[in-house]
């Protein structure tokens, strides 16, 4: 890798440097101003008390102590965290489980499989705000599509979003509808990389579809499963838009749909009801969320990568 200016040392070297600097500067400046600096500040701010928009004094770990151990903040934090964990587990099971089945069905490349690929991915390109509002209307207890359809088979009106027991599940359903196409096509891409010879050989040995799916395809797509798992984890812990749109800023009813993203937003930018905002506590929450996501991702990557090698 050399470039044409290698003979132009000496008098022309400065022109080369200037040219390279001109190419790199715009991107670097934006990154330093709007990624590097905010990120470093995010960690620093977590240790400060805030007076409005400006940090007013260093208070050590006080913000962390409040959000983790002091009521009522700690109750809110743990309640939200619990829902993030539930969301992650539910999405792994229902969203990625369904995605695996559909990907396996698409792998067969039966007539119409390309149309099905386009269809399953269609909701992915829509804004979460559209998806959230659409399902909020559909889940309306009296006039919503879901209860109208269930009414046809004699099931009575269920207040999906109004009941603490069904609200989180309903929101998760909308989220699965929105994102299903993503893991489906990622897993499909993984399956399509399995060599035809391997699949053919298994077939000749008399392996049925089920054996093929569990014994050959599943282990061989381990790298795709790793990526889908990690992205689901990151997505579950940064979850914000759909809960915000469908359940509101406080995770109604009764905090049963509150997640860390909502709680963080309320803390940092004030809820509509209280109007109180605290950048210090908000920063502490952001740092904790960052450490949680980055830490678990790093550990999971090591564990999942090892699984890939063993297979």
């Amino acid at each position: 890798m050399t470039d044409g200016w290698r003979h132009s040392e000496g008098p022309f070297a400065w022109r080369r440097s200037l040219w390279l600097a001109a190419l790199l500067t715009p991107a670097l400046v934006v990154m330093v101003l709007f990624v590097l600096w905010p990120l470093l500040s995010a960690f620093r701010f977590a240790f400060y008390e805030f007076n409005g928009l400006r940090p007013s004094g260093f208070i050590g770990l006080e913000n962390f102590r409040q959000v983790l151990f002091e009521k009522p903040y700690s109750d809110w934090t743990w309640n939200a965290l619990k829902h993030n964990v539930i969301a992650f587990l539910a999405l792994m099971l229902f969203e990625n489980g369904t995605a695996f089945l559909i990907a396996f069905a698409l792998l067969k490349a039966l007539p119409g499989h390309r149309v099905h690929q386009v269809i399953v991915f269609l909701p992915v390109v829509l804004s979460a705000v559209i998806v959230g509002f659409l399902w909020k209307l559909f889940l309306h207890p009296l006039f919503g599509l879901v209860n109208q359809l269930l009414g046809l088979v004699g099931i009575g009106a269920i207040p999906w979003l109004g009941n603490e027991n069904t609200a989180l599940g309903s929101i998760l359903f909308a989220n699965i509808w929105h994102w299903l196409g993503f893991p489906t096509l990622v897993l499909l891409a993984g399956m399509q990389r399995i060599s035809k010879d391997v699949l053919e050989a298994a077939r000749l040995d008399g392996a049925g579809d089920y054996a093929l799916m569990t014994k050959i395809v599943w282990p061989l797509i381990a790298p795709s499963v790793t990526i889908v798992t990690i992205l689901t984890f990151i997505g579950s812990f940064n979850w914000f838009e759909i809960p915000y749109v469908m359940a509101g800023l406080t995770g109604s009813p009764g905090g049963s749909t509150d997640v860390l993203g909502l709680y963080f937003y309320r803390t940092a930018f004030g809820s509509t009801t209280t109007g109180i905002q605290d950048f210090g506590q908000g920063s502490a929450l952001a740092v904790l969320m960052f450490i949680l996501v980055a830490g678990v991702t790093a550990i999971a990557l090591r564990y999942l990568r090892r699984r890939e090698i063993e297979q």
Partner: protein
Amino acid sequence: MRDRGETIRNGAIQLLLAVNAVIMVYPLFVMVTSSFKTNAEIFSSPLSLPTHFSTANLEKVWTETNFVRYLANSVGITAASVALILLFSTLAGYAIARYRFRLSSLVLMFFLSGMTVPLKLAIIPLFIQLDTLGLVDSYLGLVLVYVAMGIPSAVFIMTGFLRTLPRELEESARMDGASELRIMWSIMLPLARPALVIVAIQNAVPIWNDFFFPLVLITSDNLKTLPQGLTVFVGEFTTDWGVLFTGLTLAALPITLLYIVLSKQFISGITQGAVK
């Protein structure tokens, strides 16, 4: 026997795919058809097709709301952000891919590490930073945030692609005395078009759909983007479902049409990075 088993299995697979397709498409179909219905029609017979195609809802959305303004804002902000991402990351990627210089790998590392940063979590300092620069509640502030978010992976893709272009073209142009700028602009960049399309789609979709950053950074109604505007709109027309479905349909329309035309590029752009 074997053939019959195969037929049943394939039938089961087609059934699974068909059921899934109905679940994916039917809600959107109801959304579109409901937008032509009156409120009374939606409430009394939600499952039936509209009896006559009324455009009253459409007129209401067009004239009584700020919808067109939100749409225009989204188009402008997305276009400006994507254009700047393409420009900045192509320039940087070109420098890293086509020249040898001392800090080259360090610079690339710096960009790549940006890919792992969830910028949402740095929203507080970002907000303060933009406030200091007087950019809160402005197009420019929002665009700069999107550009910063898009650059890392864009530099990654552009660098990777530009590295694969053959040296010979560049060398012979240099022999002919072409300037470096000219070599980059008229010889190398036209070849990079496929990568530019991927980068454009990969960034345009999440920016067009984004809700979080406008929610925090934009407060004036005239500057609001489409997803953000929808929340205003839904707040105003809570009980007028005909208008709500129309608004959702209109908001979904541009990107859906584009997706149907460019589905291949959309899918590879959005799953890019997860399917390596």
